[in-house]
Every structure is written in C-alpha cells, then in structure tokens.
C-alpha cells in the first residue's frame, strides 16, 4: 500500500510538472501510467485525473498569474464556452458511443500535433489586435511580447468542443485549448500555455461533482495524486519560463502524438 502510494505520488509529480509546463491537465499522463503499471481500475484513475487537472491549474496559476503571463480576460471568455460545452457533454453522453468519441478525440489531437509542428516552421510575430490584448515578459529571451486575440468566435466554438469532450472523457481539454489559442487565435505560445492552464481547472471543476457523486474518487489514489501534482505544478512553470518557445512547442507535439495514440488505442480496444 505504501509503495503504491509513493509510486502514484511520483507519477503525479511528473504529470504536474509536464502538464503545467504545457498548459494541459496531466490527466492523460496520470491515467495510462496508474492503470497500466500500478493496476488502478479505470474509474478510479479517471476520478483521480479530474483531481489532478484542478490541482495542476490552481498550483501553476500561482506562478503564471503572479508573473502576469496568464491573459485572465481571454481565459474567462473561453471558460464560458468550455463550461457550457462540459454541461452539454453530460447531456450528449448518452447519445454518442465512447468509442466514437475517443476516435474523434484521437483525430483532433493528431490534427493539433500537425498544426503545432507546422507552426514552428513559419512562426509569425504576434501583434496587438485590440481584442483581449495582453503582454508579458518572456524570460528566455528577455523580450516583452505584446499580442491580441484573433478569430474569437472560432476559438470559442472550439473551446466549446474541448469542454464537451473533457466532460465526456474526464480530461481537462487543455490538449485542445492550448493549440487552438496558439494556432487559430494568434496567442503566443507561453501566454496560450498559461491561459489554457487557467481555464482547465474551471472545466474540470464543472464535471468533478459528477465523479465525486459516482464514487470514482478513491482517497488512496486521489490523495497522493493531488499532493504530487501540487508539488510538480509549482516547478513546471518556473522551468518552462527558462525554455524557449520552440523547445516547448516540440515537447507539446511529442505529447500530443502520445495522447493521440493513447486515445486511438482506447477507441480500438
């Protein structure tokens, strides 16, 4: 019991670190590791992963908000779309087969990975647009980056889908929201990461009660997950600040590919 506890804790430290560096919740890291290697049942793993998403968001924001990297206004606008999507997910869950949903999610992740990879080749400078403008200091380059949002309706529509999927699959939706902000809305990578991280806690909290109510949240798994994440997600943002955007982008592409494979396997089995 103690060994399992320690291993879950260590897994969560890594998930919190990687997740908070890239603006995702870590659910897609925690779930496969603890189900495949530690023998945790799927339902319990999903209950723990909802907790991990919220913990990642809250802990990382202590750094991202304090350093002014999160665009809180943009985050709140997208939260509206994403929470409504999560609520709608609860309604549509009975209509769509989980297998089809996982397959669609895998395709979406592959598409995001493709987009993120291409963007690195032709990165264009961001500029203020007068819409949800923001600016932050990039510690890796020492430059202040100013930018604005573009294509807000499209961004909101895709955030709705991200919320919908996350409500259904018990993930935070950051793996969709971060690429959407960066690729479609013209938000610089580091601001997109911080803002995506900001929104995933709200999305996950919206559907968390359902998992608590169903009895999926087992303290033996959820407690070490939460504690590990709280630690890892304090380190991640500090580490990410020192890395160049290109490095973070490459990490994100690799992780998106791993997630896509994972979802495709879930859909096929």
């Amino acid at each position, binding site marked *: 019991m103690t060994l399992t506890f320690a291993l879950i804790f260590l897994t969560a430290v890594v998930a919190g670190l990687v997740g908070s560096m890239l603006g995702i919740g870590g659910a897609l890291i925690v779930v496969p590791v603890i189900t495949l290697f530690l023998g945790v049942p799927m339902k319990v793993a999903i209950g723990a992963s909802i907790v991990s998403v*919220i913990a990642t968001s809250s802990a990382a924001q202590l750094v991202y908000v304090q350093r*002014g990297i999160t665009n809180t206004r943009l985050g*709140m606008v997208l939260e509206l779309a994403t929470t409504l999507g999560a609520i709608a997910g609860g309604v549509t869950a009975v209509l769509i087969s989980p297998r089809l949903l996982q397959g669609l999610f895998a395709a979406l992740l592959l598409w995001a990975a493709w987009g993120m990879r291409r963007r690195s080749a032709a990165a264009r400078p961001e500029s203020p647009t007068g*819409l949800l403008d923001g600016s932050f200091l990039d510690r890796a380059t020492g430059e202040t980056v100013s930018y604005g949002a573009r294509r807000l309706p499209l961004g909101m529509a895709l955030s709705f889908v991200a919320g919908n999927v996350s409500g259904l699959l018990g993930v935070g939706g950051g793996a969709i929201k971060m690429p959407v902000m960066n690729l479609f809305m013209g938000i610089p990578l580091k601001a997109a990461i911080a803002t995506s991280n*900001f929104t995933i806690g*709200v999305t996950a*909290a919206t559907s968390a009660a359902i998992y608590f109510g169903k009895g999926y949240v087992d303290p033996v798994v959820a*407690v070490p997950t939460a504690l590990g994440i709280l630690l890892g997600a304090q380190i991640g943002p500090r580490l990410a600040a020192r890395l160049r955007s290109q490095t973070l982008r490459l990490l994100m592409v690799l992780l998106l590919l791993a997630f896509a494979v994972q979802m495709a396997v879930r859909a096929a089995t």
Partner: protein
Amino acid sequence: MSLRPREEPKAAADTGGTRGTARAAAHGAARSREAAAIDRLVYRVLAVGLVVSAALLVTGMVVWAVHGGRLPGSVAGPWRATRQLVGLQPEGFFSLGLLALVLTPVVRVAGSVAVFAKERDWRYVLITSGVLAAMIAGLVVGAG
C-alpha cells in the same frame, strides 16, 4: 473593452470606439487597474485554497500513519466528512481536502464576478456569471 472585429486598427481599438485620447487614456487606466485587481484576487483565492487543501491532506496522512486502518473506496460528502474529521478519522481529512481543491476554482470565479461588478464592467460580470452558473449546475447535477 469591447469584442471588436479582428481587422480593427490596433492603436485605438482597445478603447471600444471611445473618441478623444483623454477618455481613451482614462478607460485604459481603469482597465489595467481592473486587470491588476483580478490577478490579485485569482492569486489570493488559489493560494488560500491550495494551502487549506494541502494542510488537510497532509494532516490526514499523519493521522492515517498513526491510526492505520483501511480507507473507504470513495470520498464522503461534506457533512459526513466533517463528522469524520471531528472524530479524527483520516478519511474525513482526505475528503475535505479534496473537496477544498475542487471548490477553489468555483470560489475564484465567484470572486471574479464580484471584482468585475465593483469595476462596473458589466460585460465581464455577465461572462463570469455565466461560467459560475454552469459550474453550479455541474455541482448540483453531480451531487444529485
């Protein structure tokens, strides 16, 4: 701040079409004051929520290490968990610690509504109220 179309010229766009630079400057100052207030609120709520949650979880671990025993397979609701906590049962600390973690974003959104209302930024009062309503709906549906 108005949600303007994307092709708007950048310099004056953030003023939401306000004419005259003095008014524009005042508007901009109000916006950045509001942004600072929101950032402070978010930071404080999250810091308090995390400290409370972590303290409960760690205390639960200590109690568990001392008392030992099997834990139930799922967390209890707030009332039962409080009784367990008063009875120094580790599961009470664990349930309330996890509950505090989940409720922190809800408090953060509720606090944002209040800050935007104080700044009379009705557009964002509406947006954040919508988010809060959706979160509460999720909680009610889940708890029911």
